[in-house]
């Protein structure tokens, strides 16, 4: 499972960007921009990215779960990692914390493909 940690980081950042875009750009434009304007139309079309966020989030949860099995984190911390993909911007902070903890506590997960 040496690719697990890099996969987690990529997924966390992807989920973060998608959620930030959908909730902070597409959603406000769709509901707050003037009716019929180009901005509102863009917001409406861009809302398809919610589908992408949903699927990437499910994969993020699966990978985070596998990482949790490897690292033996406490249940509350694990739930935080899993749910951080649902609140805009929180996941960027949580990803930093996870990275710091793994580098400190599980260096074997960081060095992908290198023999001990």
């Amino acid at each position, binding site marked *: 499972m040496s690719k697990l940690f890099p996969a987690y980081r990529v997924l966390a950042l992807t989920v973060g960007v998608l959620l930030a875009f959908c909730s902070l750009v597409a959603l406000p434009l769709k509901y707050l921009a003037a009716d019929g304007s180009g901005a509102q139309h863009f917001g409406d079309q861009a809302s*398809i990215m*919610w*589908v992408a966020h*949903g*699927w990437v989030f*499910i994969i993020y*949860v*699966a990978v985070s*779960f596998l990482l949790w*099995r490897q690292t*033996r984190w406490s*249940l509350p911390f*694990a*739930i935080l990692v*899993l749910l951080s993909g649902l609140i805009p911007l929180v996941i960027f902070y949580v990803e930093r914390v996870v990275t710091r903890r793994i580098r400190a506590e599980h260096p074997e997960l960081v060095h992908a493909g290198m023999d001990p």
Partner: protein
Amino acid sequence: MHDATAIPARRAFAPRYWGVHLLMVAAVVTCALLGRWQLGVWHGHRVDDAAAVTREPAVPLGDVLGRDAAFPSSGVGRPVVVTGTWDPTRTVYVANRESNGRTGYWATTPVVTSTGSAIPVVRGWTPSPRTAPPPPRGTAALVGILQPSEDTGSTDSDTHDAVVPELSTTALLPRAPYDLYGGYVVATDRSLPAAGTSAPTPGTAGLSRVTVERLPGADASTAIRNLLYAFQWWVFGGFAVFMWWRWLQEDVLGRRR
């Protein structure tokens, strides 16, 4: 780990874990409901899409259905303008029609058009032919929703009374001195499209509105996004159960994968 020192399964029911179990149940129920909601939205969009044709502007009947033509599939649910003369003497009552949970009849009177053929017009729903208002006479001009003839082969127990089991033009032909179009219209109270025309005479007075049932199916891709959302929610709910189960097995009961 020795079997004798293995953690017994009942540890999973300890009060300290009740919160987590509750959280899992809440997550599963929430995901199930959210999935159901999205499924409903998907279905609603499809129903709306199917009825879209009934909201188009009305065109003359002859533009859609010729007097001797087979019913075109593009004509199902289409609003058409019917003009001609009512033939009240050939009014029939189509049996076994539902309206607001009650069973009754469709009061149907043919309109003879300028082509010489007549088209049955479903004027409305009535609980009984005896209490139905008298059929209209004179000039007819109305907007109706076009429907294909019903031909399920139901047999008419009495071909001499005014009650028929279904609105089939082939079954009605023997009763009429004129030719019939290959379909019928359900009358609406919509105003006629041409500017400056007089008010329509749909003959609907005293009768309950009939909901058009035969509509073209919705496009397969309609609202597919909502179907995907529903599926996502259920996958997520299932995964929540899986995570809870693995946590229980490994962290609580100490059974390594």
